[in-house]
């Protein structure tokens, strides 16, 4: 199997503090890997490094077999969901999704956005500033359903989600994996990690 996400000997520091020290891991196509560890251990930093959003001081990051810094068109097949997920507060959930798809250069069939919103149980017209934390998580899941990414990076995806929301989250992870994609998720909930991922990597 080909590794879609590969980190080799990654070191990352902020000011004088080394947050990541010589971290190596890979996530193959069809695989889900959980990053485990207590708060402040560097899980979010590792996800951001893996997404190519921040460069490590040392080490190599490869996505889809290419150096993360060299990605251009391939970034469209990568989806990073932060915790909490970020959306434009003065736009509705529907407007956020449509605007994002347009900028992504992704064409979806008419009605697909409305269907995705309905699938995650969200109203179309309500502005995101009136969303709860759980609703924002659901809107992020609607993005996953619409974008069908090949690499999905999730930061504490289970946080703020109710039982129904968690089912949607598992469904999103399952779809990405079955579509030949890779999932890397960060969590400190061991039970969730065991249920959602094939294997775990503990950061300490």
């Amino acid at each position, binding site marked *: 199997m080909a590794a879609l996400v590969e980190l080799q000997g990654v070191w990352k520091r902020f000011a004088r503090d080394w947050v990541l020290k010589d971290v190596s891991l890979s996530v193959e196509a069809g695989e889900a890997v959980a990053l485990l560890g207590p708060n402040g251990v560097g899980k979010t930093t590792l996800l951001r490094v893996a997404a*190519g959003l*921040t460069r490590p001081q040392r080490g190599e990051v490869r996505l889809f077999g290419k150096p993360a810094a060299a990605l251009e068109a391939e*970034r*469209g097949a990568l989806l*990073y969901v932060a915790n909490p997920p970020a959306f*434009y*507060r003065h736009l509705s959930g529907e407007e956020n999704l449509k*605007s994002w798809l*347009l900028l992504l250069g992704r064409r979806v069939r008419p009605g697909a956005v409305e269907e995705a919103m309905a699938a995650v149980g969200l109203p179309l017209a309500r502005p995101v500033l009136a969303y709860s934390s759980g609703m924002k998580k659901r809107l992020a899941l609607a993005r996953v359903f619409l974008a069908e990414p090949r690499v999905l990076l999730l930061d504490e995806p289970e946080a703020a989600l109710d039982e129904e929301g968690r089912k949607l989250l598992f469904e999103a992870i399952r779809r990405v994996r079955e579509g030949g994609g890779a999932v890397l998720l960060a969590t400190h909930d061991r039970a969730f990690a065991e249920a959602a991922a094939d294997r775990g990597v503990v950061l300490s």
Partner: protein
Amino acid sequence: MRRILALALRDLRLELRGRTGLFSALFFLGVVLLILGFALGPEEADLRRAAPGVLWVALAFAGSLLAGRAWAVEVENDTLDDLLLLPGSREWIYWGKFLFLFGLLFFVSLLLLLLVAGMFYLPLSRAPALLLTLVLGATGYAAVATFYAGLVVRLPTAQLVLPILVFSVVVPVILAAVRATIGLAEGAPIAEIAAWWKLLFVFDVVYLTASSLLFPFVIEG
């Protein structure tokens, strides 16, 4: 081109719904014009002589309030990461943000032109030439402001640093625009004014080209 336009239009929609930067700039403009009007008036000849300078001083300072808006919307919503993860070379993001800021500045400059014409007797008989000067001036200002606002977007002191960076580079644009506007107000021949337009055009092309090429490197975290 479709994505550039979509980004600019989305930012414009957010700006109008958020009502933060544009309304502050308009309020600021009103105050500046009122103070300058009282300070320089009430003689018509004095106001008329000062009009081109007032136009560009007010626009430059209102522009400094608007300069950061192109990126502030991403910071306020924590969406900068999402923007940077969009596919393609990142020059298009610069062009989208530039177009948004240019649109804001041009709208403000049109409003300002009418206010200065009303309060400072700036003649509008050569309106097309005045509009061309505004377009060239706003283009140069927006080109520089979009670039530097992207450069400092992650700094906590961005709002303080940005006007210093922008003004230090954009001074030639403002000076050329003021000279062109003075020429138009005083009825100078177009050939004389065209020299300033050419200069503005060259500045715009240089700033836009350099900024869009350098932008992908400065926006990375």
